[in-house]
């Protein structure tokens, strides 16, 4: 320590002229008010003082940093210090520390006169710029930038002065490190680990910090181990800096690779899950370990455990739309073509039935990623819905078949249903003049590109189409009642209400209408026919106390509520075991529509994975018990583990 103090004292004393000149230079801004009167003059003075202080500080840091060791090294004067009983660390810290201290002090001293003038002349009110500088972020930047400048100047000074062949390593190292870091940043942005464009300030701060640490270590190694030998010093400086830089860049690349090269089971939890028809594939997304807000998405083949990374996870909790073809052989999703959040959306296709297939970009590019994708029954055409805008493409050629923007619609995705390959039915929500919500029904003929308005129904958001898209069940109309409408004619088929109970209606996969009546006595389920009529002998169930049919809110779907139908004859009911509204432990029961009665499914606490409703005969819904992915045979109640699972947060409100 004695040595360090001696070197510091000596080096600062060597530069006393700078420290003496700084406050004298600081007097210059005091002349400003003479040339400009009033408060403008005082502000001008402060700006000048600020500029002067920063310039002086920066220039001193640059010049001192470049010369304090470099000049001595080149003129062989560094040996003076090394032939004294001084440790290399004392020489290094003393010299570079003195340079930083002088640069700081010179800046502060240059500010002094105008501060003193402010304090005396203006009663210490102090005007804006100086205060801004003397607030902590600026001070931190200043105090951080000065030693960084000193170190950079030192490195540059040594390079320029010794001009040894190690310069090549310096350049090659800088280029390599820069390339690795940029490449890694681009990869992180591409995979959504970093926002794109990334915020510059934190990246610059981290980069400057890393460079500063590497420079610090390199200069320390150079002075301590290179001692008075300029070539050896430069070699050590270059090797250490390039080595640290390379190691840091590689470590960053490896870390980034660890963040990027993850599987669906590495996700912190699942915030999105979708099962493809046929149940062989699941789409999963959720927050991933790594930077904040990092989310990743996968398509997981349940049988083999193979997963394909997809880029439909926008951020940790947000996804772009994904659609499976009806035959379960193809997945289509939207992803950003370039920068996250600002670039056009491109549709990407993955052949699920081909082993080893990788995602392929289709020629379909929308100005922004669509909010919803709907595939035609044969999977040859796709409708992309972006808010009020609907565009229909031929999937393989990317040819635009039809497009329409519903200017009057609410900013809520238009419901699109392919009735066959050429005909679509569109449901558009809008506000009526009366303030009521209305549902406009259109038919779109792709062959003629004709859009025909069919009807306007008094129906809000809480609605559900029948599987054949001919009818719609409207809920919350009025608040505790429901109604069924024929879409083509706009005729009301049935009004469904029950005194004292809250009634909700939903179409089952076979076209029948399930009616839920939540009354004080419990929940009663009645199965009506498609037109909302009560046929003789219609099944009627009373759910066990505390049990309810699941009502899901699906953000990516247009309908607000679903009844889970597991197959043509069964409904899934959930029993809340403890009376907690959210995250309560549940057990699952099957309602047998044909025979009546309920059956309990599996252990308690299972999570049901979407899409909840199952249409294909013989298939079964997917569950997660937190550790495993489970397929439960509804007929027998047997659970089959398909593989490990992650905690899953269902995207619904209860």
């Amino acid at each position, binding site marked *: 320590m004695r040595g360090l103090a001696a070197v510091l004292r000596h080096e600062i004393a060597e530069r006393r002229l700078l420290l003496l000149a700084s406050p004298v230079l600081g007097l210059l801004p005091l002349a400003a008010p003479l040339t400009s009167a009033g408060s403008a003059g005082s502000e001008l003075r402060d700006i000048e003082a600020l500029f002067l202080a920063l310039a002086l500080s920066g220039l001193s840091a640059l010049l001192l940093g470049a010369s304090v060791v470099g000049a001595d090294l080149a*003129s062989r004067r560094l040996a003076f210090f090394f*032939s004294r009983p001084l440790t290399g660390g004392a020489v290094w810290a003393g010299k570079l520390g003195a340079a930083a201290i002088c640069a700081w002090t010179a800046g502060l001293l240059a500010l002094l006169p105008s501060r003193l003038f402010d304090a005396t002349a203006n009663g210490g009110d102090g005007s804006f710029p100086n205060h801004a500088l003397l607030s902590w972020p600026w001070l931190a930047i200043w105090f951080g930038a000065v030693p960084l400048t000193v170190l950079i100047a030192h490195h540059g000074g040594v390079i320029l002065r010794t001009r040894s062949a190690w310069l090549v390593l310096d350049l090659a190292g800088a280029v390599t490190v820069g390339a690795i870091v940029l490449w890694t940043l681009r990869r992180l942005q591409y995979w959504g680990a970093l926002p794109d464009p990334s915020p510059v300030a934190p990246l610059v701060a981290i980069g400057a910090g890393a460079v500063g640490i590497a420079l610090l270590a390199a200069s320390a190694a150079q002075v301590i181990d290179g001692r008075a030998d300029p070539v050896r010093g430069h070699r050590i400086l270059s090797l250490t800096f390039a080595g640290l830089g390379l190691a840091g860049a590689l470590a960053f690349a490896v870390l980034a690779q660890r963040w990027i090269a993850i599987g669906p089971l590495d996700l912190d939890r699942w915030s999105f899950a979708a099962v493809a028809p046929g149940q062989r594939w699941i789409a999963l997304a959720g927050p991933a370990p790594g930077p904040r807000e990092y989310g990743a998405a996968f398509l997981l083949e349940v049988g083999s455990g193979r997963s394909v990374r997809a880029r439909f996870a926008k951020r940790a909790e947000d996804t772009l739309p994904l659609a499976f073809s009806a035959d379960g052989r193809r997945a289509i999703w939207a992803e950003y073509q370039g920068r996250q959040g600002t670039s056009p959306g491109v549709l990407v296709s993955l052949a699920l039935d081909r082993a080893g297939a990788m995602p392929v970009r289709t020629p379909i590019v929308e100005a922004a990623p669509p909010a919803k994708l709907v595939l035609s029954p044969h999977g040859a055409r796709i409708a992309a819905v972006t808010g009020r805008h609907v565009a229909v493409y031929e999937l393989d050629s990317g040819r635009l078949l039809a497009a329409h923007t519903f200017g009057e619609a609410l900013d809520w995705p238009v419901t699109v249903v392919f009735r066959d390959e050429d005909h679509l039915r569109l449901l558009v929500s809008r506000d009526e003049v009366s303030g009521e919500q209305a549902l406009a029904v259109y038919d779109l003929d792709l062959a003629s590109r004709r859009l025909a308005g069919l009807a306007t129904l008094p129906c809000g958001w809480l609605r559900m189409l029948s599987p054949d898209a001919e009818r719609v069940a409207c809920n919350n109309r009025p608040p505790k009642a429901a109604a069924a409408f024929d879409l083509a004619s706009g005729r009301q088929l049935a009004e469904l209400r029950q005194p004292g109970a809250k009634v909700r209606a939903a179409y089952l996969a076979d076209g029948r209408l399930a009616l839920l009546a939540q009354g004080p006595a419990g929940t009663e389920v009645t199965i009506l026919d498609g037109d909302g009529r009560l046929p003789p002998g219609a099944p009627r169930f009373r759910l066990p106390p505390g049990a309810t049919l699941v009502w899901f809110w699906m953000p990516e779907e247009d309908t607000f509520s679903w009844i889970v139908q597991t197959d043509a004859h069964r409904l899934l009911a959930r029993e809340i075991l403890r009376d907690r509204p959210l995250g309560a432990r549940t057990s699952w029961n099957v309602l047998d529509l044909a025979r009546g009665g309920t059956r309990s499914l599996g252990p308690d606490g299972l999570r049901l994975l979407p899409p909840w409703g199952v249409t294909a005969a013989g298939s079964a819904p997917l569950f997660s018990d937190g550790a495993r992915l489970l397929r439960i045979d509804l007929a027998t109640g047997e659970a089959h583990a398909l593989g490990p699972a992650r905690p899953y947060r269902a995207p619904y409100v209860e």
Partner: protein
Amino acid sequence: MSPTAAHASLLAAGAVPHFPPAVRSDAAAGALAADLARTDAAAEARAAVPPLAAAAITVRYGRRTAVDAVSLALSEGTVYALLGRNGAGKSSLVRCLLGQQRPAAGRALLFGRDAWRHRASLMAQVGVVPEQPDAPPGATARRLARFCRPLYPHWDDAAFEGRLRRFGVPTDLPFGRLSRGQQGHVALALALAARPRLLILDDPTLGLDAVARRAFFEELIDELADRGTTVLIATHDLAAIERIADRAGILAGGRLVLDEDLEGLKQRCRRIWLADAAAAPATALDGFAPLARVTGDWGVETIVAAYDEERFRAFQDSAAGAGARVGSLDLEEIFIALTGAGADPLESAGAGGPR
């Protein structure tokens, strides 16, 4: 005859223009007594560890070997002259010995400790005068002393200022504005003020004029008289150093081709004249390890590295007609003969010839 007159007569040929009065005779006698009585156990124990040793030091710059496995050891109190032509590797060797440069192989030991690893603590006992004055050019001698004072345990301000006064160096001028000679004096004064046990001087008088050089060596002699410091001095000032050094080493091409006491060196390195070379066989002087030969119309002069008086007498007797005479060489002549332009004279003579 007064004592002072006697001194004057003793020193008449010593080229001292003015002999100072014998004010220090007490101290000198004390020093002599101490010199004579230097037998105490502690001193012997200390002498057992050489203050400076090189163990097979090798320095390479790329493919070039600047110092090639040089080994040497200085016993306490030795004044060692390290000689060598420019580029012979002296400075590299000195830097290794100072712990400023890491040898590619071998070790430099100061007081038995590795110079590279323990440089900082060792330097407290070592005074260094570099080839080029390396003190910060902006600092005055006084400021330099202030810088050094807290670093050394035995710093002697009075000695520092006394030396500068004797040298006539102003203490308030920046180091960079002093003359070359004054800079050298400041460097010596700084080195000596720390009362080092070992002095390492790398061509300290390079660029000094005759007067400055003389003053420099006088201070060095004073130091030797007062403290018996061990000295390693790399120098080209052969005339001055041969009066002071006990031992000399010659570096040539990075190798220590000679490492010998000066006394013995001068005994064995001689010139032999033959007035009539024809009267003696051409190989007559081969036994004396000839290094160089010059032929003139006065005869042949041969510089030999292995002179032996008895054998020379025998030779004189056997070749009486040759008119053989022997002469001595000064260090400069020896140095030139050993390292000079004669095509690799040392290869044939070996590292100093037979001893």
